[in-house]
Each structure stands twice: as structure tokens, then as C-alpha cells.
């Protein structure tokens, strides 16, 4: 599956990575590689997440107190840093999700009206 050309995938919009990370973590704590894989899989391999960009984003979210992190052991017995949603993060996720929905709806309306 990884043979699919990266250029065909969608580039992430500015700022959406944070939202996706928070959304992914709602199902439970996860390490960075897991988050990357989850985003990719859930989007049916449509979204391109540069793994290198993921970590500074995680760092930023941790800094803001939306996620917390601690080192743990992965399912296949490897050491990894696990991230979990904090309650502030949950609130942020709700806020961001509704913002995103309004944004896409608005953009959608504009695009449709132009077509029509």
C-alpha cells in the first residue's frame, strides 16, 4: 500500500493536523507512529501526513496542555511515547470540530453556488 505515490495524496490544510491528532486520541492514548498510521488509515490513505511534522505538532499540543504524554510500551513490546487527551484537549476538540464543520459548510456553500 505504501507504494501509492505520495503526490496523489492530499496535503493537509494549515492547522488541521492539530484537529486530527486530537480526534485520533479520543479513542484512547496512542504513540506518534500509531497516530500517523491512524490518520492515514481512517482517511483511506487519502491524507498525507509527513511523520516528521507530526512530532513538533504533538509537542505544541502538549505544551498547550491539550494532550499529556508519558513513555510506555507498545503492543509489540517497544518503548514509545504515548499521548492521551486531557480534559482541556477534549473541550478544544469540541470547539475545533464545530469550527471546522462551520468552515467546511461555508466553503461548501460558496463552491456550490458558484457551480450553480
Amino acid at each position, binding site marked *: 500500500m505504501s507504494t501509492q505515490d505520495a503526490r496523489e495524496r492530499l496535503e493537509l490544510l494549515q492547522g488541521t493536523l492539530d484537529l486530527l491528532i486530537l480526534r485520533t486520541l479520543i479513542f484512547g492514548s496512542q504513540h506518534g507512529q500509531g497516530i500517523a498510521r491512524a490518520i492515514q488509515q481512517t482517511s483511506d490513505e487519502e491524507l498525507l501526513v*509527513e*511523520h*516528521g*511534522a507530526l512530532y*513538533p505538532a504533538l509537542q505544541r499540543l502538549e505544551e498547550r496542555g491539550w494532550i499529556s504524554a508519558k513513555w510506555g510500551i507498545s503492543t509489540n513490546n*517497544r518503548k514509545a511515547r504515548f499521548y492521551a487527551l486531557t480534559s482541556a484537549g477534549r473541550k478544544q476538540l469540541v470547539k475545533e470540530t464545530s469550527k471546522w464543520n462551520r468552515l467546511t459548510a461555508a466553503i461548501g456553500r460558496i463552491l456550490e453556488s458558484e457551480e450553480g
Partner: protein
Amino acid sequence: MFRRTRKASDFGAEIAAHIELETERLKERGLSDEDARTEARRAFGNVTRAQERFYEFSRWPAWDHFWQDVRYAARMLRKSPGFTAIAVLTIALGIGATTAIFSVVDATLLHPLPYPHPEQLVSVVDDLPGAGVKDVGISVPEWHDFQRSGIFQYVSPLGGGDTNLTGSSQPTRILFDAVPPNYLALLGVPAQLGRTFDPEDQTPGFTLEVVISDALWKGAFGGDPRILGRGIRLDNDLYRIVGVMPAGFHDPGQTGTLRSTELWAAAGFAGPPAPPPQRNLRILPQTVARIQPGLTIAQAQSRLDALVASLQEEFPQDYPAQNAWRVRLVPLKQTVVGDVRQSLILLLGAVGLVLLIGCVNVANLLLARASARGREMAIRQALGAERARLVWQLLTEGLLLSLVGGIVGVAILFCAKGLLLKIVPDSLPRLNEVSISWPVLLFALLASLVAGVIFGLAPAWHAGRPDLTFMLKQEGRGSTGSGEQARTRRLLVVTEFALSLVLMIAAGLLLRSFADLLKVRLGFNPQSVMAVRTWLPVPNDPATDIYQTAAQEAPFLREVLRRGRTLPGVQEAAVGDLASVPLGHSRNDLNPFPLIVEGSETSISEAPLVNGSIVTPEYFHLLGVTLLRGRFFAESDDEKAPQVAVINQTFARTYWPNEDALGKRLKLNNSRGAQTNKDWTTVVGVIADARTESLADSSVPQIYLSLYQRTAKDLAIFLRGQLDPAAIPVELRQQVQAINPELPVFGAQTLSDVLSTSLSQRRFSMEVVGLFALTALLLAGLGIYGVISYIVSERTHEIGIRLALGAQSRSILSMVLRQGLALAIAGAAIGLVCALIVSHLMAGALYGVRPTDPLTFAGVALLLLGVALLACYIPARRALRIDPLVALRYE
């Protein structure tokens, strides 16, 4: 902000873990180990970029850079200890000296007076500009008018003096202030024990209540807690102690003596011993007041002007229009600080120049190092270091250097504080308030920072714009600066020379002034003369005064003289009042007499005031003054004989221009005392002008009266001969107390000491500025030495070729010297122009020399050029010893 606890290594470990997990996942999908790993890395993208982003985000970069710079700077400074030591010492000297002077300025000029609401405190000064006199003191009715005017909360004259305190084992002489009962309330300082006076007390004379100082309480009374209510005798009068002032309390006086008042006695100045109040009898020499809250000094002044105008209308006889009576309010602080302001500002300016020269020197050193580190900077910049980072790094080095220097400087100051305070003359006002306080430390910090920026900027500025290709091409060569850097260094040396020249000319002018003052013809001979003081008590009830009249006092005086002459080594003895001690009295000790010259129809209130001394006949011969006409006093000039006076030339010239003063008659009314002498006084002698009033001023009108005709209480006994300064006071005390055991004998000093004390402030300014100038000269010499050495080492190759081609060593020498001299001459020329401006500003501190004194200017310029030549000669000699073979192989 905060520093993240998460380390970069932790972040790195997380990335490594990610790669591992991803590799694992890909392997599960059937990729080979190697392919999986490569793919995982590809998917991750740029690891370094991620790390950088982590780094930039998770820390506060400016702070982090700053710490990096500081650590790096500290390493660089440690690496070259010699350079660091010289730079730190230079800065330490500069900062230490500047801070020392500033601590004095801070205490004297900047601190408010140590009383509540000091901005309300003023001196009240009466002037009679029409009669050509200033600060004549105020009269009791005037005081009452001011007090009632509503302009002031309190108005309080203070009559400083000393008094005999008896009751203890030895009659002691203490300094006291006769003050109205409102005085301590005016200053607003409560007693530490007991109470102060009741400000509403209206007793006309002394209230017989006294408040004593902490020093007197602990000294004379052993800190007795039951001191209150105790009776003491002052000039034989019984007083009661009602309070003890706190330890830090001082009168707002200008001189050291006034500040150490030991006792305050409350008086209304309207009853005995003061004369009946008269509007034109200005018996109150000094007056302080506290203006009403909410009133500015200017507002108070304008209301006072109105009051003065209405008083002049009301009492035309007392305030004749031609005297133009005027009352000035002067902020009390200004009165206290007096003329010290000018010398202090001079010193601060001088020390600032030294600091500046030090900075220039360190800037020069830093530049030399910067050029040595040019390649380092160029490489770092070629590798992508931001220009701003490099500039900041060099600035940080400068700041670190200056801060270390500042700390060392202040540390030295702390250690040397006691020593330094000793060389400061006692006459400096508020000396006891000088301390290394927080504002002073803050000043030191600021000065260090400013200094660091000044000398850090030069190399930083150059580092910001290096010629990369040029720098990098200098393969192997470690120490070649760009032409621009060399230009800057030369500019710095020129600046240094200019600044040094300014300082040295200032010092030279002060030195010449001082030398001129020392060479001045005194007009009297202070050698081997001692003056010892005594004081005849003035009881409040004249009936109990055994020395009330001159006739009563004369037997005592004759006996003192007779006994004095018997002391070992004594050849001559004389007695005079305190004003007769040459240069040894403050303005408060003078007795200004209103002078009425026969033939001129002036009333007492418009009479000019002249300073007079009251002396015994031996006084003139003992001091060795020159008689020009007439005669000195004789033993026969006593109370029964007609009143006589001896005047000096200036007096004669002032009041009888183009006339023979001998035989002229005048009337003198002692404005301070109760005496009203209606008899005419005849001038019997004219003496040459002597500098008994002021060293700097030879022509002050002086009049002398006979002690056998007029009483004086504050006496000085003069002795001339081969005297033992340690034994005389004791021996004389025994003799005086053999006549009257109640009399104190104190304040013994040789006239030579008096003379040198009167010069102490000038000497201090001169010595300090001189010291600064020497430091500046040394620094400038080092600066030019550094630059010329640098030029020589830079041109070693060239000089070697020249020598190899047969150049004369002399021409090489002159080539090098010429370069140095050119810098020195340029600096000197600029310095001369600046010095002309500065010397005019300090004209007030000069005596005998003009601010443009050509000798000083030329001498100092030559000296500076000489030092420059010497400083250049050493590296120039090194150039001569260059072995052409070595030089050609050099690099």
C-alpha cells in the same frame, strides 16, 4: 517565560522509536528489513528539520542564545587570562572610581535632607543690595512678622555657638544651638527620650529647657536612662534636660562643626541676654523656615515679597529705600550643600572621562582580539550564523567583561571605603551620609552596562560586516584585521588622547591654582604660632557676669598673657576674639559691625557692615603684620582712653579714597551684642592687607579694635615660639584654670594647620583630578602602545623587506614613530579645543591662572606627546631588531 523540562535527547529517542515502530509495521507487510527501514525514514521526512522545529518551539530562543553567548564569552575570556585581567582591571578602576565619586554626589546632592517633607524647608536670607551686603541676618521683629505672615508653618532662627558645660569632672566646651522653641518641631524630628520643646512657648528669653544630642547623652552622661529632668549648668546658668534627640539627628548646617551640635537650648531672642528687639538690630544670623504645605517656594517668595514691601512702607526709617531690603527664600538643601556642588560636578566629570578612556582602551583591546578572531567570525558566518547572533555574541562578551569589572571595582571600593573617606576633607557637607547604598550600586551596574555597550559595540559593529572572501583567503594568517578595523583603532586612540588631554589640562590648571595659592604672600606669619580657644561665660543675668565690661575683663586677659609667656618655648602671647584667628573662623564667627563714617550722614540701618576683630596690642607683632602708617594699639588704649581702631589698606581705600585715613573717626555698633557704644572711634593705624579672611582674596576690608576697650567672650589665645603642640594645650589649660577653674580651654591648633585646613577642599579636588589625569595618561599611553605594536607586527614582513633592501634603521624608526605621533598630534589638537571649553566651565575653581593659561596648555600637550613618543618607541625598537631573514619567512 519558562524553560522546557523536556530535553532534545528525549525528543530524539521518540523519533528513533517512531522509526522502529514504522519499520516493524512495514516489515509485517512483507518488506525486507532494509527496505522497511528506508521507507520508514522516507515517510518521516527530514529528521533534523523536525528536531529544529522542536527546539525552536519548545524553548525561548533569545534566552537560550543569551545563555549560550554568556557561556561562550566566559570560555573565551578564560582562554586569554592576560587580556581578561587587563580589561577587567581597567574597567574595575573606572567603575570603582566613578562609583566612589557618585556615592559622594548621591549623598550630598541627590539625597533629600533627612527631615520629613524636606521640600518645604527653606533658608530665609536678608539682603541689603543697596548697601552692598548679602545675608545680613534678620531682626527679632522681622522674625515675628514672618512667623505671623501665614506663609510659613514655622520660622526659626538659629544661633550656633558654644558654651561651657559644667558639673562634670572637667568643664567641657560643647557646641550648642540657641533656637526658638519651634525649631525641633520645624525640622519634624521627635526626641528618642523625653520630648522636644513646646513650639507654642512664648518665653522671651531662654526657657531653661534643653534637649541634648545622643552623643552628649552617651558621652557626658553615660547614656543614663534617668537623664530627664536633670539640671546642668551652661555658662553658670542652670538648665533642665527635657529630651534626648535620636542618634542620626543633625542640624542642617553646612560645616562639620554645625552638624555636631550637642545641645539645643530654647530661647525667644526677645529677653536677656538678647538685646530688646529692634527692627534694625539684625541679631539672628541664620534662619530656617518650613513653608505651609501646598505652597511652592516661588509662591511663598512672592507672598513674602508683598510682606516685605508693606513692612518697608510701614517702617520707612528702618528700611531706607536705598538699601533695597530684600528677603530671599533659598531651598535649605542648597544652603547646606553650598559651593561644594561645583567641585563635585567637576570631579564627577573628571572621573567620567577616566571611565570613558578606560572604555576606549578596552574597546581597542577587544578590536585587536576581534581582528585576531576575524577568521573565526568569518567561518561561523560562512556556515550560516546569523549576523545578529555574532553581533550579540560580541556584545555579550563586552557586557560580561564590564560586569565582572564593575563587580571587582565595587568590591575594591567596599574594601577601600574607610581609607577613601579619610582623604575626603571634613568640610564636605553631609559627609557622614556617604555610603554604598542601593542607588549607588544601581549606578555602578548602569555604568558597567553602558561601559560594556560602549566598548562592546566597536568590535561588534565590525563583526557585523566582515569581508568574508577577504577573511577566508587569509589562509593560516591568524591576525590580520581589515583596513577598516585598523582605522577604527586609530580613531579610538585619537579619542583617548583627546580625552586625556582635557583631563590633564584640568588637573594642570588646578595644580597651578593650588601652587599659586601656596605661594601667595600671606601678609602675616603663621609659622610657629598656636591658637588655643577659651570662652568667657555669658550668664543670662548680666549682674552675675564677672566679665561684663572691658575693664572687668582686662585683668583676666593680662593675667592670661603673663602666665602664657611663662610657658616653655613661648616668646610672645596675644589674645583676640575668634574672628581674629586668621583663616580659622567660619562666617558665623564674624562680628559684622554697622559702620558709620564721620562726615557721611548715614543712619545705623543703612550703614554698611564690616567685619571686625577685637585684639590685644601684642596681636599685630605676634602675627607679623606690616604697619604702614600710624601705630598699633598700646596698653594705654583701655576703657578710659578714647576708642581707637587699626584698619587695613583696603578698608582705608574703601572708606577714605584718596585721603589719609589716620585720625579719621567712625562709629561701630556691634549688631550682635548688647553694647551700644556712642563714642567715636579714631583710626590710629593702617596695616598692609593680609589674607586673614581668605587665601584667594587679598582685599577684604578689615578693622581691628582693642580688646581692652571692647569685650569679647569667644577668645583665642595666640602663642608664638618653639612650641610643643602636644604639651601647650595642657599647660595653657592649667594656667587659665588657675585663674578661673570654670573656664574651658579647647580647640588648640597651629596656624599652619589652620592654613592647610583652609586649603583642604581645593587640595582634595586637585589631588583627585590629578590622580584621574595620571590614570588617563597611563591608559592613553597603553592605548597608543598597543596600536603601534600592532602596526609593527602587522608590517613585520614589509619592514623585513625594507631592511633586506638596505633601508636605514633610522628611517624605519622614524617611519614607525611618525605614525604614532600623527595619532597623538591629532588627539592633542582635538583635546586642546575641548579643553578650552572645559577650562572655561571650571573657571570658578581656579585661582591666579586664566582658563586659557598658555603654559599649562603647552606643557600638558608636550607631556602627552612625550608619553606618546615613548610608548611608540618601544615597539619601534622592536621593528629595528627584526631579522630580515626571519621576517621574510614570517608566515
